[in-house]
C-alpha cells in the first residue's frame, strides 16, 4: 500500500513534468503548425540557467522566475529571428529548422556550461521526505505536482480569460480570420514561443531535482514527453496534459510492478513503455484522446 502511494506520487510528479513539456509543443503547434523539436533544449537551458542564477546568489524563487522568463525570451527570439520569416512555408521546412535550432542551442550550451553535472538547488533539503500514512513521500515530487497543477491551471485561465489567450485560440482556429480582425498574428506566435520556453524551463527545474543532476542532456526528456503529445492529440492542450500525467503514472507503475518480473532484460522497460502506448494509439486512434480527426501526423 505504501509502495503504491509512493509510486503514484512519483508518477504524478513525473507526469506533471511531461505535461509541462508537452503543453509547450502543443501551444506552438496549435498557433502556427510548427513542431518545435528544440523544446528539449529549452528544458536544459532553463535548468542550467536556474543552477547558474542560484549560484550567483539569487533567492530560489526569484531564480525560478528569472529562468522561466529568460528561457521564454530565448523562445521568442528563436521565433522572431528564425521562424517568422518562414511563415507560410511547408511544414517540413520548419521541422528541419527547429532541429537545427536544437543543435545550435546544444552547441551554445556546451560552450557556456560544459559537460559537467551540476546539482539542482531546492528550497528544501534535497532528499527531504514527508510521512503520509505509512509512506515516505519526496518533497521534490510533491513540489513538482503542486507546481504542475498551479501552472496548468494558470494556463487555462490565460487562454480563456485574457485578450492574448483569445487571440491565441483565434489564430489557432483560423489564421486568416485572426489577421482580418486585426490580431497581430506575429506577436501571437512570439507569445506561444515565450510560453513554451517558460513551461520548458519549469519542467527542467523540477526534472533536475529528481534527484538527478543537471547537464545539457536533460533535454532528452522532451523525447519522453513526445508520446504524451501523440496520445493527447497534437492540437489538444487538455488532452496533452491528461496524457502527460497518465503516462508519467503508468511509467512509474510499470517500473514498480512490471520491470521486476522481466528480469535483467526488463531493467529499463518502463522507459520505453510510453512508446508502446503511443504506438498503440497511432494504430487505433491516431488523432489522440482529444485531438481533432483531421490533424495530419507529422
Amino acid at each position, binding site marked *: 500500500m505504501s509502495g503504491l502511494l509512493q509510486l503514484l506520487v512519483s508518477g504524478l510528479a513525473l507526469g506533471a513534468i511531461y505535461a509541462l513539456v508537452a503543453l509547450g509543443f502543443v501551444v506552438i503547434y496549435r498557433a502556427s503548425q510548427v513542431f518545435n523539436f528544440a523544446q528539449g533544449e529549452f528544458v536544459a537551458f532553463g535548468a542550467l540557467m536556474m543552477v547558474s542564477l542560484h549560484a550567483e546568489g539569487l533567492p530560489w524563487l526569484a531564480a525560478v522566475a528569472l529562468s522561466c522568463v529568460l528561457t521564454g525570451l530565448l523562445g521568442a527570439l528563436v521565433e522572431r529571428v528564425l521562424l517568422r520569416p518562414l511563415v507560410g512555408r511547408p511544414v517540413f521546412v520548419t521541422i528541419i529548422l527547429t532541429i537545427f535550432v536544437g543543435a545550435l542551442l546544444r552547441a551554445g550550451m556546451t560552450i557556456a556550461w560544459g559537460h559537467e553535472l551540476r546539482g539542482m538547488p531546492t528550497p528544501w533539503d534535497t532528499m527531504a521526505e514527508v510521512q503520509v500514512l505509512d509512506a515516505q513521500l519526496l518533497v521534490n515530487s510533491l513540489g513538482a505536482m503542486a507546481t504542475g497543477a498551479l501552472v496548468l491551471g494558470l494556463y487555462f485561465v490565460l487562454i480563456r480569460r485574457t485578450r492574448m489567450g*483569445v487571440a491565441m485560440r483565434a489564430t489557432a482556429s483560423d489564421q486568416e480570420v*485572426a*489577421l*482580418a480582425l486585426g490580431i*497581430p498574428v506575429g506577436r501571437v506566435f512570439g507569445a506561444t514561443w515565450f510560453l513554451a520556453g517558460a513551461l520548458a524551463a519549469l519542467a527542467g527545474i523540477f526534472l533536475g531535482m529528481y534527484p538527478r543532476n543537471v547537464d545539457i542532456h536533460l533535454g532528452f526528456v522532451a523525447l519522453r514527453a513526445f508520446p504524451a503529445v501523440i496520445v493527447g492529440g497534437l492540437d489538444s492542450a487538455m488532452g496533452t496534459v491528461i496524457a502527460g500525467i497518465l503516462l508519467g503514472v503508468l511509467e512509474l507503475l510499470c517500473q514498480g510492478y512490471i520491470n521486476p518480473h522481466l528480469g535483467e532484460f526488463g531493467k529499463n522497460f518502463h522507459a520505453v513503455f510510453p512508446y508502446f502506448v503511443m504506438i498503440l494509439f497511432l494504430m487505433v486512434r491516431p488523432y489522440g484522446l482529444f485531438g481533432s480527426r483531421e490533424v495530419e501526423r507529422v
Partner: protein
Amino acid sequence: MPTLEIANLEVVYHSVVRVLSGISLVVPEGSIVALLGPNGAGKTTTLRAITGLLPLHDGEVVRGSIQLDDNSLVNLEADAIVRSGLAQVLEGRRVLVDLSVEENLLAGAWSLNRSQASDRVDHFCARFPILGERRHHLAGYLSGGEQQMVAIARALMPQPEIVLLDEPSLGLAPRIVDEVVKLIREIRESGVSVLLVEQNASMALDLADAGYVLENGRIVASGTAEELRGDADIREFYLGLGSTGSRGYRDVKHYRRKRRWLS
C-alpha cells in the same frame, strides 16, 4: 470619415499569376459601393489587397495605389490596416467554430480595452437577441444566418469607418438575406462606408449608391446603382432580367458587346 480609393491596382499570385490588371475604384465616405462580378473575377483578391491579406496567399500588389485619404495601405500589416479603421468580413462567414459566440466577438476586440470590449459584446448581444441567448455556445453550432451575424458583428467590434463585406448573402435563405440587407443599411446609417462584394447583383444594386463590375481582373462597367440597373448587359447577365428571357441570339450579341468592353 475617410474615403477609400484604389487606382490602377495590379495583383499577382506566386509572382506569376496576374489576377487584377489595373483596377480603379472609389468608396466615398458614408456610401455603399457594390463590387459585382462572376466567380473568379478577382473580387476577393481586391479585398485581400486592401486589407493586407495577400501575403498569406503568396500574393502581391505589383502596381497601383490603395489610399485611405492620404495614407497608403499598400504593404501595411493587416493589423495596422484594421487599426486605421477598416474591417473585413471574409467570404463564407468563417466563424471560429471552436470558440463561443462571445469569444468570437472578443476576437475582434484586440484594439479595445476590457471594458470597451465587454460594452461592445453587450451591444451586439442586445442587437441580435439570438446571439445573446447563445452567447456561451460554440459558434460552430449556430445556423448559417446566425454565423453571418457573428461574422459581421465581430468585424464591427472596433467601430471601423469602412467595412468590406465579401458575399454576405452567399448560401443564405432569402429571409436571412433580408436580415443581412437590413443590417448593411444600419451600418451605413451609423456613418460607416461599405464596400459590398456580391454575386447577388439585384440585392447589391438595391442597397448600393454606386457599383463596379469586375470581370477577369478588369473593371468592365461602373456607375451609379441607378445607371447599372438600367444597363442592358447588366440586366441580362447579372440581374437575370433579359428581355427575351432565353439563351439565344441576343445573348450572343450581348456577349460580343461585352467582349468589346474587355478588349
